[in-house]
């Protein structure tokens, strides 16, 4: 059993002849760019989860909404699955192609349609990069708040599909909190507006439902996002701790004191050392943990809050607290954190990034649990943590060439199980995609999954949009989930991932 789409478990798909589909699409959708030669398809075999690779039937690169409409109508009639892809930076294989499916790449739909600075909104096509929105809004003193670490490359359409987060979620929310309106196409090629320019709309909140639905309910062809006024001031404090638990309680102290930092990040010793070695951010390499606490807002509030936070950190047992002297040092402190993943990539041949969330109070127990599991599986784990919102990114260090892949997979599964056990989730911001499809059986019971399938069927009864992602079939859970939950065995040792 591999990550590949398995018709016996994930559901049957209709087989089509590539040349016929290409010819028919060419006839039906004039001007549509279609890639179908082996070497053209190769760059699209995977998204950001590069260990999972499948060659799609073909790649379509539409330039207009009309082309997508016609393509969908054709795919619907011919029963060809459609997998949408933005910039391909997703970490859970949400845009992993299907051998029998069209990969609909939205990269060319990259126009910023309009910015209205007075209303604080921007209308953009789905292929617009996250950072490009903030750059276009900057002349007006505005920006788009959600900032996933891939923001330089990732597209807003993909952000909507994954309900992307970032390091400022606790204060500024996720994608779902920062969009007003979506123009979507149903699988039948019918155009529907979800939400509006007003703050609410009549009927069910389909805007919220679509956000994070991983391309399973429709294709997003335009997004209206909210823009915020840039905070006057932002300052960051770097606190060192000789004990991870104390760093965890410091987080609770700050929030308990009524302060909501713009960013609140924790790194453990292994992550600190890797980042420092790579970026030279000035991190204390002997600390057990560091906290980065950024306070933003009006000048005077930031000053007041910085004093409060510093006092709280010291009381909570920080061995050292440093306030970034200037903007350059602030950027340096952040650079260490933002480059933690590649930094860990330098100290290990391979690493596997997990994305669990936990109630913050469970942090000490979960970290010691991860440490225990790390020893049990004989693989090192570096922990990077969005401490403010309970989103943990353990990075499992392994060497695929030394045959450690399966062990890394198993350790990852055990860590996610631990997150679920303490009331958390298997994914905070990376999505389920194909990667965590089996762990969904641990997160949800059969009735809950059945409801998800019913919900999906309301939009896409034939299951043509991104089949095999996000929600596992009950058959899949019976095959893998039952063993996973009941036998206490290593989860999915048969999976050949990476």
């Amino acid at each position, binding site marked *: 059993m591999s990550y590949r789409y398995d018709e016996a478990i994930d559901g049957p798909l209709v087989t089509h002849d590539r040349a016929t589909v290409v010819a028919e699409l060419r006839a039906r959708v004039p001007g549509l760019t279609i890639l179908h030669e082996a070497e053209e398809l190769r760059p699209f075999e995977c998204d950001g989860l590069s260990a999972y690779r499948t060659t799609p039937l073909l790649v379509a690169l539409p330039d207009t909404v009309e082309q997508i409409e016609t393509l969908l109508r054709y795919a619907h009639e011919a029963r060809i699955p459609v997998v949408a892809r933005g910039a391909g930076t997703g970490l859970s294989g949400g845009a992993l192609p299907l051998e029998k499916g069209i990969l609909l790449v939205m990269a060319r739909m990259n126009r910023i349609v309009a910015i209205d600075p007075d209303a604080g909104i921007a209308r953009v096509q789905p292929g617009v990069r996250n950072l490009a929105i903030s750059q276009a809004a900057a002349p007006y003193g505005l920006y788009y708040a959600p900032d996933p670490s891939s923001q330089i490359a990732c597209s807003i359409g993909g952000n909507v599909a994954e309900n992307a987060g970032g390091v400022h979620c606790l204060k500024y929310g996720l994608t779902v909190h920062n969009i007003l309106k979506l123009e979507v196409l149903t699988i039948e090629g019918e155009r*529907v507006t979800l939400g509006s320019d*007003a703050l609410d709309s*009549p009927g069910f*909140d389909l805007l*919220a439902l679509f956000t994070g639905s991983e391309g399973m309910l429709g294709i997003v062809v335009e997004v209206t996002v909210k823009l915020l006024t840039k905070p006057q001031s932002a300052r960051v404090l770097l606190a060192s701790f000789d004990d991870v638990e104390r760093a965890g309680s410091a987080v609770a102290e700050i929030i308990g004191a009524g302060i909501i930092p713009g960013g609140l990040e924790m790194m453990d010793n292994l992550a600190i050392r890797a980042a420092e070695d790579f970026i030279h951010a000035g991190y204390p390499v002997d600390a057990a943990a560091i906290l980065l606490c950024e306070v933003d807002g009006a000048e005077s509030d930031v000053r*007041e809050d910085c004093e409060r936070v510093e006092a709280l950190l010291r009381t909570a047992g920080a061995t050292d607290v440093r306030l970034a002297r200037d903007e350059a040092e602030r950027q340096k402190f952040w650079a260490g954190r933002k480059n933690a993943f590649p930094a860990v990539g330098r100290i290990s041949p391979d690493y596997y990034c997990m994305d669990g969330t936990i109630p913050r109070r469970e942090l000490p127990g979960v970290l010691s649990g991860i440490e225990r599991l790390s020893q049990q599986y004989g693989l090192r784990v570096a922990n990077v943590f969005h401490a403010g919102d309970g989103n943990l990114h353990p990075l499992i260090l392994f060497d695929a060439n030394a045959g450690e892949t399966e062990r890394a997979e198993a350790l990852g599964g055990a860590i996610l199980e631990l997150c679920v056990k303490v009331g958390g989730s298997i994914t905070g911001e990376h999505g389920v995609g194909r990667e965590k499809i089996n762990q969904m059986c641990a*997160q949800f019971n059969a009735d809950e999954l059945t409801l998800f399938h019913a919900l999906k069927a309301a939009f896409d009864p034939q299951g043509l949009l991104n089949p095999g992602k996000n929600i596992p079939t009950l058959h899949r859970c019976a095959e893998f989930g039952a063993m996973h939950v009941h036998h206490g065995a290593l989860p999915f040792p048969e999976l050949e991932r990476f």
Partner: protein
Amino acid sequence: MRDDPIPLDDSQRLVDEIARAISTQTPLSVRGGNTKAFLGRGVPDGAPDGARELDTRSHSGIVRYEPTELVITARCGTSVAALSAALDAAGQMLPCEPPEFDGRATLGGAVASGLSGPRRPWAGSVRDFVLGCRLITGEAKHLRFGGEVMKNVAGYDMARLAAGSYGCLGVMTEVSLKVLPKPRATRSVVLDMTAGKAMTALTNWRRGALPVTGACYADGLLHVRLEGGEGSVESAIGHIGGADLDMAFWTDLREHRLPFFADPRPLWRLSLPVAAPLMPLPGDVMLDWGGAQRWLKSHADASSIQAIAAAAGGHATRYSADATPAPRGAASPFMPLSAPLLRLHRALKARLDPHGLFNPGRLYADF
């Protein structure tokens, strides 16, 4: 006035009643404090053709609340007032300010209707604060979606879909909400200016990142609330001036207790884009949400009011119940949905509530 029942897990009774409704094919009219009965189409009562009432108030009590987690989890029958009191004691609040309606509004009803108070444009809606819920489905299954964590993208966002669905997709039995600390400083002022000047001032303040968290224009006066740190609030007051305003104004606005609401004409709510210009409306008008929510007292007919709202990029909802319960075929007080949107609504309702149990016709006659 609050009369909270003893905290009790009464979910099994709710599950049993829904199971019975399936076997007898009797639709249910789901209610908490029944404070929003004026909203939506009436669900005709009285079997065999009408619905049986399902009162959720006995399932009540706060399940979990740890202030440092910024999350509160409570059963649907818990009153909003009881939740607010618990949060207040810990220096926190529900930033979306759902109305309490004399202490009778329940958490379930507040989330199901999604009504948000004066802070909404700046802090977010009720839906924005929903993290998870437990829900009894149309097949009488008691399920859990979302959770008590800030970030969770596992599965479809059923919890936020349930918010604002008027109980038409399932019965929410428990909700987890994100909460926030109360601001350190709050001030409120009133300024004498024309509506046009008020709208311009609000746009400038938004661009200038002033800590505005309430803006209501009524009777020739702009009422403004500022919240944040001491420094930013004081400097904002210095910037905008005005006379002090009693904070009770915002509670009265939230609870529809201002004199404006006493006008006997039907009440309409227009939800418009943030920067929508002022426009003539057929009746008396009060602007809330900095102009994004406009209250109208008017005898004008529904289609003309809704046409004005639609032309401005928004929608209008009738907020007064008809004197007589709406007959089955009566128009919805909510704006009609576009044809493709209506089709999706019907499909969703048919899949999630296949027996058509929950509040049939409450939103629209079709489902």
